[in-house]
């Protein structure tokens, strides 16, 4: 049963995608069919979350089958497994897809069969990325998750979608290819492609340094961090609401997940060597992203740049290398998915009604659209990390943990907390408060049931994680402690020489 | 006995003839024939080498090549016919659809 769980998790959306593609059904039934598979996946995802053993080290629910033999003699495997690093992301991904599907009728009116196909295929790819325990399999899933987004933005996107799509795909493709170089280097040096062996083994130091640089570039583009971030606002602005939600909620987390899985676990020496620089880039991202978010006049672009700032925190947390900051980074990945996902949904709610995203076109919505106002305020508060919401727990743990290792950088990053309030409350001010200046704001259709269905679970999650994060923290505790311990010997120059090197 | 070098020189001449023809000719059928010429010059080299070294390997290769050439000629001529039906011409200058 347990061994079948993860193949089921990846297989369900894949099967669903194929069925949706070929089933001779009308649009409504197709939507239902896709929803059925997405919900089933979410249930399995929730099951994995609940059954995950928090105190255990290593991968759980392991599944492995031989795949093909490499020229060098190694064997690649179809291997899946979940540990504390991935379990939250797996659950979040499985959860966000039904939310995207439930809101889809609001903004997807053409080529519905294809839309559902791509979304489900992307879900399979994303889940595969988090679950893969083999380098080659990981790479396959990594690329598999990219292609559907290309079509999602390219077909159902806004006016300038082609530019955004090509920019986004080229950017990530460059990253993936550089990553592939690192991947091959690692596989050659280690003589194996299985991640569960790599995360405990030790590669020669020069290999680690080189491979880390390759991996990091790929992941940093995906995250994205300054200065590789400019694809993100364009992609977000042009993407349909559902695409934005998945992009912000899950795709970006593939980058931070990769940084931890490959950067810290597989290549600790490389991470230790490059760590200070990357942490600095994270801090720059926090401040720079915040300032840019503040400068935006397009509400979706504002939220997109706020993502850059939030993920700057995560990068800082990852490369501060302390148990607490790592837990914060993992948790903040989830939090960002929830609160930014909600913000994108809310922007979509407005766009579906008013067909504009310019801040100056709104105003006074608190009176004319109160339910929306409440949801926007709550999401904003979660986004700026008010205690009692999820954003606080993640951001606080990152800053708190990072402060032990990098006090100056953390202090600068903490300024971002102030700036976050500046631009987010600025947005609320322009959208919700003041007088109604645009007559279009006067008569807005109330929130539809499907919009409630998408937003309420997210709001509930914000409060739940904010008030009682223990279930999440308990599941990430062991792996973060192990990661911190694994990198510890490399941080100090003298101990490095004494580290045992397994010949591989 | 004819020295090997003679056969090689003949092969080189045939090959050069094929190359020049391929570059200069405009009729597609002529091009195909030039290709055949080049292939057969290669056959000649194989045979000459086989005789010089007294091994049978070199005799095997032309047999393969003859089969390949036959297949190639069949496919090539089929294409030529299709082309002529579509375009009404066999002048290679008329087929520049791949220009960048």
């Amino acid at each position, binding site marked *: 049963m347990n061994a079948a769980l993860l193949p089921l998790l990846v297989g369900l959306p894949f099967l669903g995608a194929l069925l949706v593609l070929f089933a001779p059904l009308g649009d409504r039934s197709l939507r239902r069919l896709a929803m059925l598979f997405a919900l089933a996946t979410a249930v399995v995802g929730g099951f994995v979350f609940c059954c995950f053993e928090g105190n255990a080290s290593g991968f759980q629910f392991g599944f492995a089958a031989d795949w093909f033999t490499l020229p060098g003699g190694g064997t690649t495997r179809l291997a899946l497994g979940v540990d504390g690093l991935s379990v939250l992301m797996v659950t979040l991904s499985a959860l966000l897809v039904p939310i995207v599907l439930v809101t889809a009728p609001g903004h997807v009116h053409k080529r519905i069969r294809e839309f559902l196909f791509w979304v489900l295929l992307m879900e399979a790819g994303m889940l595969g990325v988090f679950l893969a325990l083999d380098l080659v399999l990981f790479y396959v899933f990594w690329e598999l998750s990219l292609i559907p987004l290309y079509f999602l933005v390219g077909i159902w996107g806004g006016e300038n979608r082609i530019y955004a799509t090509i*920019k986004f795909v080229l950017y990530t493709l460059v990253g993936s290819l550089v990553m592939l170089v690192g991947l091959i280097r690692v596989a050659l040096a280690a003589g194996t492609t299985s991640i569960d062996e790599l995360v405990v083994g030790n590669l020669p130091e020069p290999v680690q340094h080189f491979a880390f640089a390759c991996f990091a570039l790929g992941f940093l583009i995906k995250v994205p961090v300054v200065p590789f971030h400019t694809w993100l606002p364009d992609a977000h602005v042009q993407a349909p609401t559902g695409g934005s939600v998945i992009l912000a909620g899950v795709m970006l987390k593939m980058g931070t997940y990769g940084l931890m899985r490959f950067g810290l676990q597989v290549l600790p020496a490389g991470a230790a060597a490059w760590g200070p620089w990357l942490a600095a880039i994270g801090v720059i991202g926090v401040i720079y992203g915040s300032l840019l978010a503040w400068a935006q006049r397009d509400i979706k672009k504002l939220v997109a740049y706020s993502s850059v700032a939030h993920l700057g925190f995560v990068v800082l947390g990852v490369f501060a290398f302390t148990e607490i900051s790592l837990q914060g980074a993992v948790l903040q990945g989830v939090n960002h998915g929830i609160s930014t996902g909600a913000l994108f949904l809310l922007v979509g709610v407005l766009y579906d009604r008013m067909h504009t995203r310019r801040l100056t076109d709104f105003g006074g919505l*608190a009176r004319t659209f*109160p339910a929306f106002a409440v949801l926007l305020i709550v999401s904003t508060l979660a986004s700026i990390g008010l205690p*009692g919401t999820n954003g606080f727990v993640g951001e606080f743990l990152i800053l708190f943990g990072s402060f032990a290792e990098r006090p100056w950088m953390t*202090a600068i990053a903490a300024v971002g*907390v102030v700036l976050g309030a500046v631009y987010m409350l600025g947005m609320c001010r322009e959208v919700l408060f003041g007088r109604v200046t645009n007559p279009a704001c006067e008569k807005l259709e109330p929130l539809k049931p499907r919009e409630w269905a998408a937003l309420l679970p997210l709001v509930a999650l914000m409060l739940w994680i904010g008030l009682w994060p223990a279930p999440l923290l308990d599941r990430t*505790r062991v792996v973060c402690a192990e990661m911190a311990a694994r990198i510890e010997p490399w941080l100090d120059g003298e101990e490095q020489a004494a580290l045992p090197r397994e010949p591989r | 006995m004819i020295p090997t070098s003679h056969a090689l020189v003949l092969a080189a001449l045939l090959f050069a003839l094929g190359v020049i023809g391929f570059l200069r000719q405009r009729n597609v059928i002529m091009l195909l024939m030039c290709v055949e010429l080049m292939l057969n010059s290669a056959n000649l080299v194989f045979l000459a080498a086989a005789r010089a070294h007294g091994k049978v390997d070199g005799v095997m290769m032309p047999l393969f090549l003859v089969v390949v050439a036959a297949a190639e000629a069949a496919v090539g001529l089929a294409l030529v016919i299709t082309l002529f039906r579509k375009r009404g011409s066999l002048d290679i200058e008329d087929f520049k659809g791949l220009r960048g």
Partner: protein
Amino acid sequence: MEAPWLWLITLLPFLGAAVNGLLHARVLLARAAGVADDPAGERLVAWIGTLAVAVPFALSVLAFVRLQGMEPDARLLTASLGDWIHSGTLRVGWALAIDPLNSVLLLVVTGVGALIHVYSAGYMHGDPGYRRYFAYLNLFVGMMLMLVASDSLLGLFLGWEGVGLCSYLLIGFWYADGEKSDAARKAFLVNRIGDFGFLIGGFLLFWGDAGTLQLDGLNAAASAGTIDPGTLRLAALFLFLGCCGKSAQIPLYVWLPDAMAGPTPVSALIHAATMVTAGIYLVARLGVLFAVSGILPVIAIVGALTALFAATIGLAQRDIKKVLAYSTVSQLGYMFLGLGVGAYSAAVFHLVTHAFFKALLFLGAGSVIHAMHHRQDMLEMGGLRSRIPTTYRTMLVGALALAGVPLLSGFFSKDEILFLAASGDTAPWLLYLMGLGGAALTAVYTGRLLALTFFGKPRFDEAEVHVHESPRSMTVPLQVLAVLSVAGGLLGIPFVMHPLATWLEPVVGEATAIARGAEHHGSHALEIALLIVGGAVGIGGLVFGLRRWQGDPAAEKARMDRLEGIWRPLANAWFVDQAYERVLLAPLRGLRALCAGFDVFVIDGAVNAAAGAGRAIGERVRKVQSGATSEYALWFGLGAALLLLIFWIGGTP
């Protein structure tokens, strides 16, 4: 002692907020369906809101009684609900801890809070956001109680930011007015700057090696010397920055005057009686830590400066609420002055009495504004004494207490702080004189406020404004607070009784001993002399203020014009806002524009340039693809020849 029912104190207001919020949602739905509001609904909401605070008040009294029944050194009630955040060595629980210090604050918050809820029931009558208002107000009380009752710095921070949020929501309560929303945002942002200090201070303490965020643990670590002195000093300064934000001290006081945009009961509850005293509470709570850190002189100086500085501004304001706002800033300065000279219990004493009389004054001002149909300019009032007698009488009591007229509560608490400042170690006479100057100005602007509002002839059109006394739900809280403003002095009368100081002794005793040394400075003679001086200044200032501004407004205006050079800066609050705008905000906006330009032109420009370069190269190279088969063959042949040549020269295979 374990007392799980303490959670009721903090959770009931949250429950009230939730219920009222749902009621608000129901009304909105009904309104959307075209149904008019049910006037009877307001009563229910007011009852729920008030009970959600009154019951906690009763429970707070119970907690107080329980504590009293214990040994003085063992007075502690705790309640825990398990872990909140647990990661690595950081472990913070959902836990409350009530000791004598915060039991007093619980009483003040719930007591004054309940009165203000009653008052609001009348004041907000007929407002379309009635339910929303009570939901916010309940939420605020809940957050404030979390702040006061938490046993850890992080739990305190939850309340700290939570009250900031409620303050934001309530200042911007009438959100259709953009200016009010801006004021709300300003309050939140300035507080966030303080919160930044709070966070960094907390980090420094934990990693510098207190290893805990429990409040008692931090005090213990400080007194045991486990925290490196340099780190401790820095951490205390950062924490104090947080206090400056929340308690509106220089340099972060600028949000409080603008916060007056909110409904007046909110100003009374949040911006006078409770939230703004959070900073004082924090310093008192971490009294030992602050005392050991050695930054108390900084606190004292900032407090004294603020007390004096804000009082000067209060002198020249026309808006009745603005006067009270600057007065609050100034009074908070006194409390910090008290803390800064190690007079912890005196500071808390002033906190309590100030909560009474300032809440009274704000509510009285609210009653005046209510009577004047939402006019707040004192130059358009006058002669209200006989028209709204209850308001006048109760406000008079509050004003006397604020001015420091002998035998009222403010007199005792303020003069205790001044005496302890004069007998302290840090520049005693300078601090005392600054404090006394502030006290004199306080008395003057209080007299001015009374004179302009209640005395003289009416300066408004009586045909247009029908002045009317407020309903009983508003006047009864005024009367209760007036009694408290008088009786509050009983908490600490020099030479006679010190119930509050005795009560607080187990909590702040150690800190006081560290800050002021074990032996008492200052003689009884000095104390008596200062009491007399203080009383005289209070009465004198008040009388001066009353007489000076009672004359006819025309003459007043002429006089003001003559003193233009002084009045203009005062009336404009010394142009601090404008200075911040120029020195801080404008450069920040410049940086923002710079970054935005950099992003578009440099970073994205580089990306697009790379793409453009690729395209341009392709544009050139595409010509090679001529489509002519023979040409391809030529290139092919040349390439093959080149390879052969290379192999020939290189000699490899």
